């Protein structure tokens, strides 16, 4: 029982940043933009979140600062790809390279200094009860991620603004000709994606390992991008996918503890498993590709009003 609870708690923790970042990217892609800079924005969010937490001890302030940092870095991408119609793939890669270098630079003096992890929403004494622990024993970002799954689903499916955003992603020229600002919608979507990636990054020092380390997101931003494909651009499927990955990422600890056949598998293979699993998942999803799993029609295509 104790082990089961421990597993659930770790899986939920590991899944949360991927889920948050992937939700942001899902909205961006639904608007027809492919931002491959998620990993870079996450690293910037991680270092900014860490620094604010380190100096103020205010986790909410840290999350907010990380979101702002994510938005600012996403605006570099937005300006280049929207206002200057630069190649989205190349710009996203450049953003990741930038975020890696920039976060390492401003975090250089903070390596290996501890910060307090965020408290869980319930007081310790109540959280001792196993069921309360599993349902309510997490810190705020976990519930934020759940809430956002629902919010993004509701926004895309049930609101007029969501309809406009989808129209912009499916057919930019028609949306433009009936008077919607394609670039305006895309700027907002990109900023939302940036805020989510920033918060997701801050989850690493605030939720998982209470310190800053260079490149500490370790490719999770890329896995988030892959998850959007896996979820075929649908928020509810994203929830499932992110938890599946959280499970793959934390399996190692428990199987090793349990001993037996699996403990003979080298640690490096376990460490490579999330990345290999991503490839397997992408393959599986491609095998059952149908109309319901298609990417937004304008994904990655630049749009220039007046041309």
């Amino acid at each position, binding site marked *: 029982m104790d082990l089961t609870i421990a597993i659930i708690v770790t899986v939920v923790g590991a899944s949360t940043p991927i889920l948050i970042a992937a939700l942001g990217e899902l909205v961006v892609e639904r608007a027809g933009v492919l931002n*491959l800079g998620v990993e870079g924005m996450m690293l910037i969010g991680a270092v900014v979140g860490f620094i604010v937490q380190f100096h103020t001890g205010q986790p909410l302030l840290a999350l907010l600062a990380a979101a702002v940092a994510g938005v600012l870095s996403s605006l*570099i991408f937005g*300006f*280049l790809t929207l206002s*200057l*119609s*630069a*190649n989205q*793939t*190349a*710009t996203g*890669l*450049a*953003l990741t*390279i*930038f975020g*890696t*270098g*920039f976060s*390492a*630079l*401003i975090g*250089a003096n903070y390596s290996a200094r501890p910060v307090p992890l965020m408290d869980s929403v319930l007081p310790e004494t109540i959280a001792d009860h196993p069921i309360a622990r599993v349902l309510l024993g997490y810190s705020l970002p976990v519930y934020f991620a759940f809430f956002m799954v629902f919010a993004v689903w509701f926004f895309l499916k049930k609101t007029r603004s969501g309809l406009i955003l989808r129209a912009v992603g499916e057919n930019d020229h028609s949306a433009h000709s009936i008077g919607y600002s394609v670039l305006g919608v895309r700027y907002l979507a990109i900023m939302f994606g940036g805020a989510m990636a920033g918060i997701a990054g801050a989850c690493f020092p605030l939720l998982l390992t209470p310190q800053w380390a*260079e490149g500490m997101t*370790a*490719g999770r931003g*890329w896995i988030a*991008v*892959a998850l959007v*494909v896996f979820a075929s651009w649908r928020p509810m499927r994203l929830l499932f996918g992110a938890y599946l990955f959280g499970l793959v990422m934390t399996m190692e600890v428990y199987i090793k503890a349990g001993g037996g056949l699996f403990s003979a598998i*080298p640690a*490096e*293979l376990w*460490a*490579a498993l999330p*990345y*290999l699993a*991503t*490839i397997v998942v*992408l*393959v599986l999803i*491609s*095998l059952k*590709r149908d109309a319901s799993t298609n990417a937004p029609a304008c994904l990655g295509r630049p749009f220039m009003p007046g*041309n």
Partner: protein
Amino acid sequence: MMQFRLEKRAEPSKFMLYATPIAAVALTMLVGVILFSAIGYNGFAAVGEIFLTPLTNPYKWQELGVKAAPLIIIGVGLSIAYRANVWNIGAEGQYIVGALAATWVALATHGQGGFWILPLMAVAGAIAGMAYAAIPAFLKTKLNVNEILTSLMLTYASVQLIFFLIRGPWKDPMGIGFPQSRRFDVAARLPNLTVENFGFLGDGALILKGLVERVHYGVPLAIFIALVVWFIMTRTVFGYRMRVVGAAPHAARYGGFSQNKTIWMAMLVSGGLAGLAGMLEVAGPFQRMVPGFATNYGFTAIIVAFLGRLNPLGVIFAGFVLAITFVGGQIAQTTMGLPDETTGIFQALMMFLLLAGDILIKYRIRRVQPDARVGAA
């Protein structure tokens, strides 16, 4: 108020195509001064150390060559792939497995000696790089799985493969517990150029002595490869075909060029060259497999390919520019205490500014007078 407006050019500007990379480098230095001043460093000194000192100090030139060689080799391969619209961004992983295969040959032939060991390592490196790139190629052509994600995920996996091999089967028995392979035999080490190579210069060769001591054979090889690829891409049917498939897939299909074949070729060539670069690095500067072998050359080469305008001759130029930032970054680290990561920021800035400048190829900026606008409308 003055207003500006973008106006589409009738034809893409050739001038801008080549002028914007140079402008991007110059602007990077300017933005660098501002950025580094803003965060409390002496911006002018930082940019000077990073961009100028490597050029003004002749003893740093060989460092430039050594750093530029892998960037040029990988960058040339990537420029072929990107021209064909094949987004191989896992060159770092292909570079790593290339080096691992070469290491395997070096360790397996340990103690034997022989002139054939280095060529065998090169072949093994190239084949391993190709094989690793074949995975995304297969998944892309058979199942239409995005090659960006698969090639990148394989890079993360390859780093773990280094750790596994040097902690386990390849661990140096004399390494006092360090996770690294044993040092390669002389026969498996890439020799450096010597003054004798320049005998044709007569007494002049002696001047070169201090300038070539650290330059290994991979450096001239990199430039040679770039020239050969340039010739193939511009002067042969194969090159024409790769360019057409990338630029106009529909026309290519009419012309009977198979897209799948192009994807395969693009991935195999870029993966093979990345693998070869990995072999040259492990047999040259490293001489053994170490945990820090993942040097990011594979990622930096993406910038090299773009800055070089996906043209092998441009890639030679861009390879040296990026090498300057690496060497200059190290200089600034020792003289100014600037962190190592500074280099990455300059490299990313260069890429941002280059991508921003791309718009000038297809559009021109027109000044619009507010009153004149009424007449025009």
